[in-house]
């Protein structure tokens, strides 16, 4: 009895212990429940912010694509890319409604100025509401670089759009509790086509190997060989420099006023052609080619004196071989003729035998738009050659024989050996127009004039000039920095 009485207090102690354990367990359960609720709500707010950030990217992308790209001279024409550095910034009224846009230039940090409501130049961006507590601040970053230096006239854009968005949960003043997401949309770089480009060697053979005129810019990653008397920029407006950029050796007696030594100045990716792309975008164009075209092998072959007319539209061939005859490319002001030479290893061509993957026109090409002022007609004929994966593994050869016909075209074959020859009769030679991009590029002409209106025709109409290549999620902090918006990306 005494022993039992001596243990009376143990009940209280045990109960207290159980209560303490119970409280701990209960507390943990409450904490877990609250945490789950909190995470669920945060997830929702975070998703709202992410979609608001995407809305910001779409809005800015749209505004940039509204720029008059033709006047931006994507080919590096008279104004180069200087006008591309413009930013389109919204003007807002007191209710944050967009009342218009103003064009401004990038600030000292190379960033489009902040939208403070008046159209730019403010110290901070104004948040744009997307609904349900979502807001965004977004900015276009041109990312302009001048690989050859400011005086080279060569500017490349590596543009991006950065968008910071948040869910304020209905309390705009409490910025510390914003749930934020920040996204950078990396856009496709813009590097205008020059008059002559070679991923390896570039050679210009002038009249008797002594003289030639280059109206435009030329560049090569390796050696550049030009006639001793090479005159540049004799026939263009002052804005287009008429420069030569080489990566290894430069061979030419005349010291050009704009000669640059820069490595890797040419970096062109090949065009890829969808296997489902029709041989002719306009079906009747293929039938108009008659016996020169085989729908089985997807090859074009002209070996007699016939005249073949190409109507406006796209053509895809496994091989193009014209050793004789006349080739008329009847581009119009509204639509070009675009010839695509697919890879020999492509689905379209891999079943063929014999040589393929080349574009050969030994009697030249007759572009209906050739000879227009400033060579604007050259875009009327665009020739794209994919190549076989080996440098110089495929060939582009355009030989002019008629001195009365200007060879005018855009040739884009960055992995092919490209040669283009102007028509000559004795010493009377006529010039070449357009742009030629090859691996080893050889020009036989006394005059080459760059196309100044390269932006006239779309290669692919499904995307704007500014389009997203990839998205990067960034560490978010409020507000978006006007001087370093890509921080944390």
């Amino acid at each position, binding site marked *: 009895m005494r022993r039992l009485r001596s243990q009376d207090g143990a009940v209280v102690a045990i*109960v207290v212990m159980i209560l303490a354990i119970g409280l701990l*367990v209960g507390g943990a359960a409450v904490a877990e429940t609250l945490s789950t609720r909190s995470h669920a709500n945060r997830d929702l707010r975070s998703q709202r912010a992410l979609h608001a950030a995407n809305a910001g990217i779409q809005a800015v992308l749209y505004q940039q694509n509204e720029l008059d790209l033709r006047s931006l001279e994507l080919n590096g024409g008279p104004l180069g890319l200087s006008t591309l550095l413009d930013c389109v910034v919204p003007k807002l009224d007191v209710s944050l*409604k967009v009342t218009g846009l103003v064009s401004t230039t990038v600030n000292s940090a190379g960033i489009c100025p902040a939208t403070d409501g008046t159209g730019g130049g403010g110290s901070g961006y104004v948040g744009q509401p997307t609904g349900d507590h979502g807001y965004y601040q977004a900015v276009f970053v041109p990312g302009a670089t001048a690989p050859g230096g400011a005086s080279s006239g060569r500017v490349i854009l590596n543009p991006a759009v950065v968008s910071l968005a948040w869910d304020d949960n209905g309390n705009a003043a409490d910025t510390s509790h914003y749930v934020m997401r920040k996204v950078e949309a990396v856009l496709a770089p813009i590097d205008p086509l020059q008059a002559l480009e070679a991923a390896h060697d570039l050679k210009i053979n002038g009249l008797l190997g002594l003289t030639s005129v280059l109206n435009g810019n030329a560049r090569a990653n390796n050696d550049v060989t030009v006639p001793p008397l090479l005159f540049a920029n004799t026939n263009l407006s002052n804005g287009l420099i008429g420069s030569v950029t080489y990566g290894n050796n430069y061979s030419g007696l005349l010291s050009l006023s704009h000669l640059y030594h820069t490595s890797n100045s040419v970096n062109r990716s090949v065009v890829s052609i969808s296997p489902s792309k029709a041989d002719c975008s306009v079906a009747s164009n293929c039938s108009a080619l008659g016996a020169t075209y085989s729908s089985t092998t997807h090859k074009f072959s002209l070996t007699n004196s016939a005249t073949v007319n190409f109507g406006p539209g796209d053509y895809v061939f496994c091989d193009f071989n014209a050793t004789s005859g006349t080739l008329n490319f009847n581009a119009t002001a509204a639509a070009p003729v675009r010839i695509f030479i697919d890879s020999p290893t492509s689905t379209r061509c891999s079943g063929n035998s014999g040589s393929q993957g080349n574009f050969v026109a030994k009697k030249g090409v007759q572009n209906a738009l050739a000879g227009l002022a400033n060579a604007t007609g050259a875009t009327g004929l665009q020739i794209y050659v994919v190549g076989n994966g080996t440098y110089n593994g495929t060939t582009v050869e355009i030989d002019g024989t008629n001195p009365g016909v200007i060879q005018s075209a855009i040739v884009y074959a960055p992995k092919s050996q490209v040669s283009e020859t102007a028509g000559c009769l004795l010493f009377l030679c006529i010039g070449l127009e357009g742009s030629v991009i090859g691996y080893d590029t050889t020009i036989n002409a006394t005059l080459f004039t760059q196309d100044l209106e390269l932006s006239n025709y779309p290669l692919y109409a499904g995307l704007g000039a500014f389009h997203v290549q990839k998205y990067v999620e960034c560490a978010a902090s409020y507000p978006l920095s006007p001087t370093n918006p890509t921080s944390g990306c």
Partner: protein
Amino acid sequence: MIEVTVAMLLVTLMVAGLGGLFITGNHSSLASQRQINLLEVAQAQIEQVRQTVKQYGFSTLALNAYPADPTHSPLPSSPSDPNDFLVNNGTSSASYLIEQNYNSTSHGQISIAPANGEPLEVDTTNGRIAPKTTSVAAGSDTATVWTYVTKATVGCVSTLGACAADDARRVIVAARLTTIGNGRQDLGPNKPVYLTTIISNPIPSNQPNNAIGLRLGLNIG
């Protein structure tokens, strides 16, 4: 004896309290799980809309029919039917209110929205977005998804002349549980979950001469 009785009473109370707590916590967790499931449903719908635009083009980003009429009028403070935000539905002036908080209409619309909301994009010929999808799996439950496409305002380059009215479109997705598979039927969320974004035309329709330039390295379709 008394202290034993008191102790048992305390323990009983604690066990009862803990039991209640666990049940409440369990319900709360279940509601959270359902909210997450709804969020995933809404998220999937937005991705599906993006995919539609990518595959069929921007012009197909429109409702293929008018939504059903609102079920409540006037607009409740926290509508359970997303169609309640429709104005002049079924007419050429149909619009949708862009709320600052869809679950508390007293906050009103966002500042940049017109008074009657943004015009609804309905194109019965080319539109590929269904205004309502039912029986969408949301975990072990099913949900109904409402989708609205409106003409959003993101500004345009006025120097180009008239600005295109519908080159930027707002997509609003609402998802609400309709059938509960497991667990308490009366647990939330009872209100729809909303997600909003904007999709713009990759080629502005007022771009001069469609001068979009040469772009290389693309798959040519």
